[in-house]
């Protein structure tokens, strides 16, 4: 078990962002996609106790140790994926959504996603004209080892390449699009099955949206460097 405790003091009425000292693991059980190994998951639990009050809040989620890389292959123009340094041949399927009336249930997600794993798939692509899928969808992709390619809400047909040509500059409210995208990333980002965020289907989002998404989604340089020192920093958000 890995357990760590930090003391901190939070000013009244404030909203702070705090990074704990990183936890070290020696040879952790890695998370692998379907067909490449086990989908090892750890349970991460975070609690906060307040003096003179007791436990104030708690949060827990599954977490999988894995590294997913992908680049465009200059020879074929296709995208090559690697998981934990191992190249993977992608066998994937398109996904729109479970039900057109959005009667989304854990049971249905479990059945649909296990079906994809039983078909020997290792990736599901969530099409840009559908939904940003829900945490329950990602939970079962974590369990069954389905990598997820999640598109944002832009499609060629509706955004500038359809017949008739329409919405060449995407949705009317770009700030709203980015607010929804950022909130969706925060909702889904800890799932080991989440492999790739994609701007849209058959279409690049408008420049300002695309640039902002690329900027927001790159890995923070903080996580690139080698770690020996236990650093923790607290940043006032507001």
């Amino acid at each position, binding site marked *: 078990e890995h357990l760590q405790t930090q003391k901190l003091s939070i000013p009244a009425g404030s*909203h*702070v962002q705090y990074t704990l000292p990183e936890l*070290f693991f020696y040879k952790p059980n890695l998370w692998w996609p379907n067909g490449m190994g086990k989908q090892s998951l750890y*349970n991460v639990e975070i*609690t906060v106790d307040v003096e003179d009050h007791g436990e104030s809040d708690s949060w827990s989620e599954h977490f999988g140790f894995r590294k997913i890389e992908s680049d465009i292959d200059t020879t074929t123009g296709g995208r090559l994926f690697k998981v934990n340094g191992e190249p993977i041949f992608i066998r994937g399927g398109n996904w729109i*959504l479970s039900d057109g009336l959005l009667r989304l249930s854990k049971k249905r997600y479990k059945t649909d996603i296990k079906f994809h794993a039983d078909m020997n798939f290792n990736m599901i692509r969530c099409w840009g004209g559908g939904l940003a899928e829900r945490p329950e969808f990602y939970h079962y992709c974590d369990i069954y080892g389905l990598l997820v390619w999640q598109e944002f809400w832009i499609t060629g047909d509706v955004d500038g390449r359809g017949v008739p040509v329409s919405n060449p500059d995407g*949705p009317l409210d770009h700030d709203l699009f980015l607010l929804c995208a950022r*909130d969706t990333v925060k909702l889904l980002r800890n799932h080991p099955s989440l492999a790739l965020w994609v701007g849209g289907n058959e279409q690049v989002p408008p420049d300002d949206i695309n640039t902002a998404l690329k900027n927001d989604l790159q890995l923070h340089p903080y996580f690139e460097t080698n770690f020996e020192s236990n650093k923790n920093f607290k940043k006032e958000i507001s």
Partner: protein
Amino acid sequence: MAEAIGKRVLDKGWLAARSTEVDLTGVELTTTTPPSSDHSPWIEALIPGTVLATLVKNKLVPDPFYGLENESIIDIADSGREHYTFWFFTTFECNLSTNSYVELNFRAINYSAEVYLNGHKEVLPKGMFRRHSIDVTEFLNSSGENMLAVLVYPPDHPGTIPPEGGQGGDHEIGKDVAAQYVEGWDWMAPIRDRNTGIWDEVSLSFTGPVKIVDPHLVSSFFDDYKRAYLHTTVELVNKGDLVADCTLNIQVGTEPEGDLILV
């Protein structure tokens, strides 16, 4: 018994009614004149779900996925947005202890809404893919029943389906930040209400003065995956009016394998 910290999902006992058939305001619905399921136009609602899912559940429209039944359901383009603008209503009880806080959370609503709780109003801004959290601590009846009403509006640009159909209909839905398939595609017919509704989880979260928000977990690897680090960043909100001296704990355990139970 005071509420323990944690989340309570509100997915039972919801009612629904078409907005054009309800003369009361949200304040009246959640104070003097709460609805009941045995009085028309109120029907049992499916939450989470869409307006059409509730109408299908109550057999007020045929199931659009059988035969050509979808053709017999009026499209929002012909009925107008108010036809699919719906009220949703429920009640709940909760017992708050001192220095505790409650947030009302909507994980997704399509497309915008007004929330009324015991006569207090909040507006949920537009966007199908965003979460909403409202601190409702001061509006709650800490003993007895709380009444919650939500008026949900369809997307601003539901569009019109051309006679020949086509990918995304007339593409108007693309002006909003919402799912685009709902105007129909080559593989499916249009969805008549454009998926309007409280389409994802509704919950209450009970906390003390300090709340944990959106932890971010990142792993980094070295020495050929022998050495790994787990980096954790959390947002913490102190809702109280005093400095909070906290102890933040993180525990990482392996999942029980099969029927092995960790003691």
